[in-house]
């Protein structure tokens, strides 16, 4: 197990390196724009630099791009430092650290809601195939797959405001000082995001359950005279969950994208807003930082997903 983990982490390094090159170069395909933008807007950090060349030097943009890359990567690897914002005179680490909790809370809540809705409904759908409940569940997932979450979010903001003058709150209390107020802010956005994610998980759960329920060992479990509860929960669900867990790993990047949109709709100050602001300012260090953080988070989740297989299935051994 330990050596497997080590191998997996080591295997991440080349992927991460390739990812970092992608991040760094893609973002810098149009160089110089930030300088034009700063000089034209007479930003405070630009005002002390008379010429374009001065400013370029002060921001470290005058080195050749590979030197910039090595410097940037060196800072990350050696100091965990993602650099300085070009506009705000704050560190990228600080900016991201300020925003990340909002996005993570939104994402985790949405995922929880999705799983809590999807797995029971998917299991029920499979063990009561072709009944009213099954059809309702499947119809829900078919519709939820087609409804864009930004439209659902927009409707939730607009319709209640029109009908009852209610609008979702958006002043965030820290979770630990006032959890109820905090959850009030996140509940509606997470429900919207969770509902759209649950559709996919529900379908996968149902399909996998149907496949597992027709296996020999399930027939054996029935033949032993076990109760339905036990057959379903102990024998079927556990085996059907493995592909579902894989799916959760795949959903995490989609969830990340979803939070960007939902944050915009509900005006939550998360990573998504920071990203969109930075994109309009061409604040490269922040963009690359967010880009990299999101990639690393996805990789870590994928690693956790792989480790989860072992918990569900004793046949899985991490020794290859």
């Amino acid at each position: 197990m330990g050596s497997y983990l080590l191998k997996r982490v080591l295997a991440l390094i080349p992927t991460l390196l390739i990812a970092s090159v992608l991040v760094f170069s893609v973002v810098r395909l149009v160089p110089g724009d930030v300088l034009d933008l700063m000089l034209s807007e007479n930003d405070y950090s630009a005002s002390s630099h008379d010429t374009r060349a001065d400013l370029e030097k002060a921001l470290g943009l005058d080195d050749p791009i590979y030197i910039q890359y090595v410097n940037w990567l060196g800072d990350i690897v050696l100091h965990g430092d993602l650099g300085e914002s070009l506009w705000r005179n704050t560190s990228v680490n600080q900016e991201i650290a300020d925003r990340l909790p909002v996005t993570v809370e939104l994402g985790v809540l949405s995922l929880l809601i999705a799983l809590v809705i999807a797995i029971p409904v998917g299991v029920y759908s499979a063990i009561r195939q072709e009944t009213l409940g099954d059809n309702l569940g499947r119809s829900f997932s078919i519709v939820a797959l087609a409804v864009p979450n930004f439209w659902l979010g927009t409707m939730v903001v607009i319709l209640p405001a029109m009908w009852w003058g209610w609008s979702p709150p958006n002043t965030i209390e820290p979770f630990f000082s006032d959890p109820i107020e905090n959850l009030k802010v996140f509940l509606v956005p997470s429900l919207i995001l969770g509902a759209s994610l649950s559709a996919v998980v529900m379908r996968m759960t149902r399909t996998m359950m149907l496949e597992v329920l027709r296996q020999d060992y399930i027939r054996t479990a029935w033949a032993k005279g076990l109760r339905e509860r036990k057959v379903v929960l102990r024998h079927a669900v556990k085996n059907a969950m493995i592909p579902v867990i894989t799916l959760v790993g795949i959903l995490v990047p989609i969830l990340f994208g979803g939070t960007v949109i939902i944050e915009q709709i509900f005006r939550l100050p998360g990573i998504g807003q920071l990203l969109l602001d930075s994109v309009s300012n061409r604040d490269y260090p922040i963009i690359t930082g967010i880009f990299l953080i999101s990639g690393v988070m996805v990789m870590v989740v994928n690693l956790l997903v792989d480790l989860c297989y072992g918990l569900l299935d004793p046949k899985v051994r991490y020794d290859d």
Partner: protein
Amino acid sequence: MTTETAPAALTTRPPTTPPLRERLGDNKVLGFIGRLIVQRPMGAFGAAICIVLLLTGVFADVIAPEGYNAINPIDRLKPPSAEYWLGTDQLGRDLFTRIVHGAQLSVIVAFAATSLSIVISAVIGITSGYFGGRFDMASQRVVDGWMCFPDLIILIVAVSVLGPGTWQVILILGLLFGISGSRIVRSSVLSVKQNIYIHAAQSMGASTLRILVMHILPNVMAPIIVLFTTRLAAVILAESGLSFLGLGIPPPAPSWGGMLSLDGRSYMFQAPWLAIVPGVALTVAVFGINMFGDALRDMLDPRMKGVGSGRYVAAVRRDRPSSRQSTGGTAQ
């Protein structure tokens, strides 16, 4: 359990999928349409929606000759009426006209970006799968690196580099979905290249290009077609999401996502049809494509049967060492 919607595990199928042509029967097109309607009524319904969407796109100028940007300040924010079927927006533009032209825009973006992505997927997938070895290793690591990033974040960053615009959006979406889709093509190629006829072609001295184009490509067409339909819906959703954020196709182009964007939010409280109509259009279009795509997948590529939209299936069924071990007893 003998209904036509029998679950995957009950339908026994040969382990190797016969080529597309065989499965479609003698009278290919008619036979296919007939089976679609009989076996998959929802799929046929979805196909009907797709056809309506396509025709609306093609004949947009005939259906709504007014022009999507005809501003009429006197008739601002008018509710739906006989004159304005779906009402008007804050500039007095007829919403019905804009929806129809939005369909055209969606169709253009969807087909262009999806076609581009399919070409990219096919080129990467076929070469990587066929040649194998170091080339495969290297290209798959790049694909890995690319795929760790959330789609929307890649899109936002790429749009910020290229600037907003229809062609930029098509290019970026094509590249994005092309790279991730290459996995699906590659895994099909890996099984196709084991076939005797490939070895036969090789020993006959056929050139590599000939083998790739004449022997491999036709035999991975089924997953490619399935990939195409599932990507269409994904492209439409991604484009509308980008336009919603103000990073996609810039106004006054009538992108459905753009019509829902935050800029118009303040008017939506007075004129809810501005929020409802484009959303319904999007949902119906995506719903239709999904239904048709699902039916097509079940009929063309039984291995992928019933497991949600293509990208999830592909990735879940992707050869992961640990999942291969663990599902040894359950899969197939």
